[in-house]
């Protein structure tokens, strides 16, 4: 029997379970991603179900054995929360999907949790969507052990900001493309900016880093594409 009390965390996804309950997928500070059953929340009008929403800073308590403990208590962890709207909100869904797809249940990382928190609060500021997503993607892959090679090229030479590179997950940045492998062309400048977590200076850097991260993530996610990206494109790129 495990009993956890007032653990800081966020709801990242939920689905209906049996007739009146929900399975709440949460990302927590000290327990990583956990799935909890919120019993009876679909039928009762009282209680904490109104708090079970993505992007609200929560404190969660649960108890139980095995893979699916029961959520016993929820309260707000802070008086106010970022109020994501429009594009920023859909970027938030994208962050949540990355967490669902790339982290394992119970794989705790207070460090990644902190990055998630920071990403949510910068998304709340105007026009910070792209840089926030890129920074989070780089940090997340790094923490999960899939870090990109951004400071030295495939031959161990330091990255030259004025050089054009060709990036592949298994080779890192190469100065010449290897035939038969799909590389993402990326400038040294962009690689260094991503490495330092610097703001991406111009449209070219943003585009390069977007392509680079998309291809690296695709590699780690296997064949199944990210749903939230497809929806985002339908909503905002038409």
């Amino acid at each position: 029997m495990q009993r956890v009390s007032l653990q800081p965390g966020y709801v990242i996804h939920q689905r209906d379970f049996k007739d009146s309950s929900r399975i709440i997928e949460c990302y927590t500070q000290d327990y990583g991603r956990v799935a909890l059953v919120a019993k009876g929340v679909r039928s009762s009008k009282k209680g904490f179900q109104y708090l079970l929403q993505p992007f609200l800073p929560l404190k969660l308590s649960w108890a139980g054995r095995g893979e699916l403990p029961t959520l016993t208590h929820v309260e707000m962890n802070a008086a106010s929360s970022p109020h994501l709207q429009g594009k920023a909100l859909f970027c938030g869904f994208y962050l949540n999907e990355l967490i669902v797809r790339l982290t394992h249940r119970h794989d705790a990382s207070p460090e990644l949790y902190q990055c998630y928190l920071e990403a949510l609060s910068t998304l709340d500021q105007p026009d910070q969507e792209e840089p926030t997503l890129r920074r989070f993607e780089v940090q997340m892959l790094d923490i999960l052990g899939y870090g990109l090679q951004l400071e030295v090229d495939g031959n161990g030479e330091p990255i030259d900001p004025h050089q054009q590179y060709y990036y592949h997950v298994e080779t890192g940045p190469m100065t010449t493309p290897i035939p038969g492998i799909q590389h993402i062309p990326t400038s040294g400048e962009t690689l260094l900016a991503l490495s330092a977590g610097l703001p991406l200076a111009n449209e070219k850097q943003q585009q390069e880093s977007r392509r680079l991260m998309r291809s690296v993530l695709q590699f780690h996610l296997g064949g199944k594409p990210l749903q939230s990206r497809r929806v985002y494109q339908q909503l905002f790129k038409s």
Partner: protein
Amino acid sequence: MEQGLLNNLVESLCCLPGVGRKSAQRMAFHLLERDRSGGLHLAEALDKAMQGIGECHLCRTFSEKTICNRCSDPARDQSILCIVEMPSDIVALSTVDYKGLFFVLKGRLSPIDGIGPHEIGLDILEQRLAEGQVREIILATNATIEGQATAHYIAEMGKKLGIDVMKIAQGVPLGGELEYIDSNTLSHAFKSRVRY
């Protein structure tokens, strides 16, 4: 439970929400022992409803006709469109004094589940709005994050087409005491305060 027909009936009843094997068995026995004519009537009504009910081409709610009674009612104001998530929301709103029309999304944007604009009929809605008859939309999606995301997107769509976009108010429920209301609802109510 070996007999084919009885077993089949019990298993079929299990498709109802909230009905497990035990209560399905109770229902089956009740119909067989006490109310065979009721059972036949139910079978006929189910058959007719499942065959005959489709969706209205205009508002996407359940309807036997291609255009439902509400949408073809000349007494209703064709220039106001209230947008809801589920057909059951129309029922909930039927007690409200509202003379316009409805549009049912049958869902909400839920990016992680792959539910995008096409899946909830937003292309159909956009066409409808572009026809020019609708002058005002009232957003009545749920007050969940997904409901808000959906509302935001539809609002942008409406504004681009020069349509008045309204949204139902969120705040203190009637009979509600402030100290028992959650802080999010309170801060919403505070932000959307109105002149007294």
